[in-house]
């Protein structure tokens, strides 16, 4: 297998030498044959012709040897490439359209796959996702509802809640993607902070704590220090509607980066 590969590679890379060798080898054979025939009394020219015939034609024999060396696919590929580039050079308009079409097609596919990969294919970034269940509630629920559920749910170890909110940020009141989550949210999912820390029940964080996404932190604070509890960046530009101080920045991850700019906490949960 390896021998085969090396042999073919050598045939391609040292093409000139291989061709010369082949030529010399077959020529030698024809000369020997011609000499043998001439020795039987055949005229020299006739002997040479006969020798060539017996080999099945000089060029044909060479071609068969190239085949046997495994060079045909390579030769054909090179020929096809040459032909293709010639054709494309002759009609630059067509070439441009073709290249553009392919670029567009590949680009769109790559973009789509990136999104689908991040949103659908990649498992959520928690350890042992098989131990988690998601419960969806269609009607609007409050943190008080969650508290009642927490009191009555005995088949699960932890119950954390999250709901979508739209906090506004800065002077312009830019709307953000946000989630309001229960205090035990990060502990339950086992999500750690990239910088600073996430809030937790154990640490007894105040109810107005916030955790920023890596993306948000980068965009608005240019990865400026957020600090533990007293985020300098967050204090300079508070999250207006919620006026929370950022406790930390959570792990760089596509899901959260794309869908949550800030997670904030609601009192009591």
């Amino acid at each position: 297998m390896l021998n085969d590969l090396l042999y073919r590679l050598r045939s391609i890379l040292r093409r000139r030498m291989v061709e010369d060798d082949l030529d010399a080898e077959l020529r030698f054979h024809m000369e020997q044959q011609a000499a043998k025939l001439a020795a039987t009394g055949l005229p020299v020219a006739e002997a040479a012709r006969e020798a060539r015939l017996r080999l099945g034609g000089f060029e044909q024999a060479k071609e068969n040897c190239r085949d046997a060396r495994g060079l045909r696919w390579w030769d054909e590929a090179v020929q096809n490439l040459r032909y293709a580039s010639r054709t494309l050079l002759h009609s630059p308009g067509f070439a441009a359209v073709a290249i553009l079409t392919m670029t567009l097609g590949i680009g769109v596919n790559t973009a789509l796959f990136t999104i689908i990969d991040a949103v659908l294919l990649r498992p959520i970034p928690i350890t042992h996702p098989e131990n988690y269940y998601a419960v969806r509630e269609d009607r609007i629920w409050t943190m008080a509802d969650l508290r009642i559920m927490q009191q009555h749910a005995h088949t699960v170890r932890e119950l954390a809640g999250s709901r979508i909110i739209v906090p506004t940020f800065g002077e312009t009141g830019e709307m953000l993607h946000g989630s309001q989550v229960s205090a035990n949210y990060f502990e339950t999912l086992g999500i750690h902070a990239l910088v600073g820390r996430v809030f937790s029940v154990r640490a007894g964080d105040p109810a107005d704590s916030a955790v920023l996404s890596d993306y948000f932190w980068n965009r608005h604070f240019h990865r400026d220090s957020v600090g533990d509890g007293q985020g300098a960046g967050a204090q300079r530009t508070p999250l207006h509607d919620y006026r929370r101080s950022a406790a930390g920045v959570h792990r760089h991850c596509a899901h959260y980066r794309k869908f949550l700019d800030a997670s904030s906490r609601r009192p009591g949960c």
Partner: protein
Amino acid sequence: MPDEKLELPQGTLDLLLLKTLTLEPLHGWAISERLQQISREAFQVQQGSLYPALHRLERKGLIKAEWHVTENNRKAKYYELTRTGRKHLKDEEAAWRKLSAAVACVLDIA
């Protein structure tokens, strides 16, 4: 040239080529001559298929080639059995003997 030339059964050319190389390295022309002599002119190897077969065997690593000078001071490409080639030949030879013996057996009975 004798009139009755035998066609080589498919796949036997490789076996015969390897066999001719057991004693010493030979160039293509010598191989074809020797095959003809040994088989008492029974088959003449198609010269057109000789070289592709040699190159194929070289590619498989069963033989290797080197350029040497002949007795008449000409450069020629000599083929030589590799270790893998020797082993391969042994296996193929055994298989061929078995096959031909079995065929002969059946023919004798019938």
